[in-house]
């Protein structure tokens, strides 16, 4: 009955490193939020609005789905199954 907990994962930290070691402050200035908000997004403590998410993706020149990933417990379980090979065994 309980509502599934959802989580938006992201790879902003690795993208910042790839972008010549862009700092959180530099990214924050570009997307128009505070550094603390960038830190909260990176730490997956805060899910940004769609507009900020698009701005982040645009800053790194990546499609949105390459920066953010919507993850539910079901998708986590499926990923874990796929990794352990269970999904192959259940397939006809």
């Amino acid at each position, binding site marked *: 009955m309980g509502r599934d907990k959802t989580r938006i994962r992201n790879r902003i930290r690795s993208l910042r490193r790839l972008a010549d070691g862009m700092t959180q402050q530099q990214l924050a200035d570009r997307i128009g939020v505070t550094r603390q908000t960038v*830190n909260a997004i990176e730490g997956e403590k805060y899910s940004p609005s769609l507009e900020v998410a698009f701005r982040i993706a645009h800053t790194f020149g990546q499609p949105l789905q390459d920066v953010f990933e919507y993850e539910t417990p079901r998708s986590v379980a499926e990923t874990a199954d796929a990794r352990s090979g269970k999904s192959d065994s259940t397939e006809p």
Partner: protein
Amino acid sequence: MSILHHGFGVASALASSRGEEADGDPDEPPHRMSTKLDKLAVSGMFDIMKPDEHPTVENSFEEKSIWIQLAAMLLVFGGYLIVAGTMLVRDAGAIGPFIPLLIAATVLMIVVNVAGHAVAAVMTSPEDCDERDRLISWRSEARSAWMLGAGVIIAIGCLALSMTPAWIANILLLSMFLSQVICYALQLVSYRRGF
């Protein structure tokens, strides 16, 4: 300067010992490759030392502002409510004697807030609120509004019991005070723990 040079040298030596090579043309002059290698290694070193990689981040101006408002509220209006409570217990009469006290508390509250924000602005450059700040504020206000509602209901009850205007006014002020304190506390919890 010597520390910097030492850092570059160590980084370069570490990179060389790992057998790392700079990307680019292998026919490049050795001194240019060494410079690139230094840059790569040093950038790696700075990645480790970058302050924003630390899990704790310095409080934003907005968060400091909330701390200041909470402290001012607790000190000034907390003090007012203690004095007003004492006065009510002694003589729960007219509302007149409470007016100068309330004006003094309001002026003091403004002074403490201005002084606190001036100090905070010197320590941290003020920034505009962003969407997270606004969301935290809205959520906290929504979650603390029940206290003000409860105060209004209690005040109506007091009115039905024919209590003095001084009691009713101060019950309303108390509920406003508690509601605001809860709001600030929830905001600070949201900033610290996220949501």
